[in-house]
């Protein structure tokens, strides 16, 4: 655009900004309303998108606490038509099945067997009924719970069936109290175990089988199989196989691969979902309204942008319409169309930029303030999103500039005499 800015350079721009500023001050109410529209639009989009992200993240975190991107393979029964479930062939997994998966399955990052049983745990005068898990090192990697003190369970513990225990964050408080520590001995169903590690806090899980990880005791899988033999099967039964996805997006493929390998070993159909039930929070999340909520928020934010955009646009249109005689006068005393457009551009830009920056500040402050509130595990807090900042600023600025420029462009296109007559 060639205007005053074109040749007069910085001095010209400064001059135009001065003029623009004066015009803004001259139309205080209109400027304020326009400004408010931009501020409102920008700030709400940043906050709403942040909130949508926050809800999504809350759910994601809630599901991830059981183990990020993990899946569970439970024990099932062969599905045969017209046969009552109780009469169908019983299936179970063994350590060999776990090893076979570990060897052959390409899509899971980790595979591990896990057994669980509620047992009584006692330390000094205290006794609790707790969820006791038999775990493998890979399983601990899948669960992802941090070790706060001591050490994790290692392969050597499994190899030697050591009677060692890693205590969950809350179980430590409830069972060990103030006196217990790494090195203390606890009894699980009467058998002494030495505490080798304590888990850091995991938090409230949105998916779990049995107790929360924070309330669990972890012992080596091999020890668990001896401590809690199966009621009626005469071999070590792995009650559950867990695995971690390499790629969240490949959940269906990974399930298919795992099921096919196990089905072959268990001699069932590779498509029999009842025989080999696999459940993953990832699928759950995809189905849950979490993502829909995010979409909804983005839509609400989009609508806010549109509404604010319309507000700004009508304000600008009105402003330029009222100033048509002014455009006529300026043209009459020698302004080129370029000069007029430059003036309107800078003036509109001043309002929109100011509103945008204030809006970003307000939206950011609100989002960050709410994000900093110490909330529970399952209370959503907004997540600050640069995308939202960029999108809202871009949309608001574009709308504002177009709304200011288009009518000015039209007004400057007709004969000044006609524009003046509109007075």
């Amino acid at each position, binding site marked *: 655009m060639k205007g005053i800015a074109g040749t007069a350079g910085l001095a010209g721009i400064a001059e135009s900004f001065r003029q623009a500023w004066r015009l803004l001050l*001259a139309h205080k109410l209109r400027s304020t309303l326009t400004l408010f529209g931009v501020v409102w639009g920008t700030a709400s989009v940043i906050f709403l998108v942040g909130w949508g992200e926050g809800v999504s993240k809350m759910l994601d975190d809630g599901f991830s606490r059981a183990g990020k991107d993990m899946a569970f393979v439970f024990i099932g029964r062969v599905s045969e038509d017209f046969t009552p479930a109780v009469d169908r062939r019983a299936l179970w997994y063994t350590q060999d099945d776990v090893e076979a998966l570990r060897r052959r399955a390409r899509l899971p990052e980790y595979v591990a067997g896990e057994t669980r049983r509620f047992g009584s745990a006692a330390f000094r005068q205290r006794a609790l009924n707790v969820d006791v898990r038999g775990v493998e090192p890979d399983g601990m990697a899948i669960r992802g719970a941090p070790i706060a003190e001591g050490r994790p369970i290692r392969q050597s513990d499994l190899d030697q069936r050591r009677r060692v225990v890693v205590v969950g964050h809350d179980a430590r408080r409830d069972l060990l109290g103030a006196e217990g520590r790494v090195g203390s001995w606890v009894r699980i169903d009467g058998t002494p175990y030495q505490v080798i590690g304590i888990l850091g806090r995991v938090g409230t899980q949105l998916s779990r089988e049995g107790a929360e990880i924070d309330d669990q005791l972890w012992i080596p899988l091999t020890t668990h199989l001896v401590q809690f033999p199966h009621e009626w099967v005469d071999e070590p039964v792995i009650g559950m196989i867990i695995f971690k996805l390499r790629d969240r997006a490949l959940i269906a493929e990974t399930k298919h691969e795992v099921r096919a390998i196990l089905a072959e070993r268990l001699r069932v159909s590779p498509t029999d979902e009842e025989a080999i039930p696999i459940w993953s929070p990832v699928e759950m999340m995809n189905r849950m309204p979490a993502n829909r909520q995010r979409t909804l928020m983005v839509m609400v934010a989009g609508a806010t942008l549109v509404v604010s955009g319309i507000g700004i646009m009508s304000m600008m249109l009105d402003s330029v319409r009222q100033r048509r005689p*002014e455009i006529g006068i300026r043209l009459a005393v020698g302004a080129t*169309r370029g000069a007029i457009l430059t003036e309107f551009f800078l003036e509109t830009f001043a309002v929109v930029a100011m509103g945008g920056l204030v809006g970003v500040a307000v939206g950011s402050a609100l989002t960050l303030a709410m994000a900093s509130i110490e909330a529970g595990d399952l209370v959503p807090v907004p997540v600050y999103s640069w995308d939202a900042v960029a999108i809202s600023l871009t949309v608001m600025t574009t709308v504002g500039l177009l709304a200011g420029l288009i009518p000015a462009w039209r007004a400057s296109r007709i004969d000044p005499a006609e524009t003046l007559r509109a007075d």
Partner: protein
Amino acid sequence: MTDLGDEASSRLAIELIGLRKHYREGQAEEVQALRGIDLEIERGEMVAVMGPSGSGKSTLMEILGCLSRPTGGEYRLFGQDASTIDADGLARLRGRTVGFIFQSFHLLPRLDIAENVELPLFYQRVPRRERRERALAALARVGLDHRASHIPGEISGGERQRAAIARALVNDPSLVLADEPTGNLDTDRGQEILEILKGVHSDGATVVIVTHDPGIGARAPRKVSIRDGLKVDDERVSA
């Protein structure tokens, strides 16, 4: 003074050949404001264009001032066909060569008087300081330098008209066009305005005044009468 290349070679400031202007008002039939006007105005002339309201004289002034383009005929300004000049070229002409004095002043209400007068210079990219000096000089010429920092709403109609004249003169235009410059003023104020315009004329500019006031017309060296979009009379008064 102007960027019209062959200005020096032309004896005429204004040459109109069969000038026409039609308006279409909504869906109604065409309004023929000018129906073929032939007119030559030499450099340095002072001409009063007379005629009743609705005669087309304001439309004529708009075309002379490059604020509007004719629908037919030819307008040569200092020898150059105005229809060959693009919009930006016309804008430059309006800013440098032509000074237009509007009947309703057309001052920008938010700017003070000096800033209003500076406006043509602003669009010529004249530096700030020089702009201010020339604006104050132009205001002094119309006796309004003491009102420089007032806004139009704070001064009288006569003063506003003088401010509008100062704005028209600030670029030392070769052609000054005044559309009913005394129309909104009482007789005394009107005389003042006329004296200023005569001063401009004696400084060498071509001056065209549109008026329906016979008193003003009588004091101009040449009087052109317009009626129903046609020139009906053209008389030179020997001084």
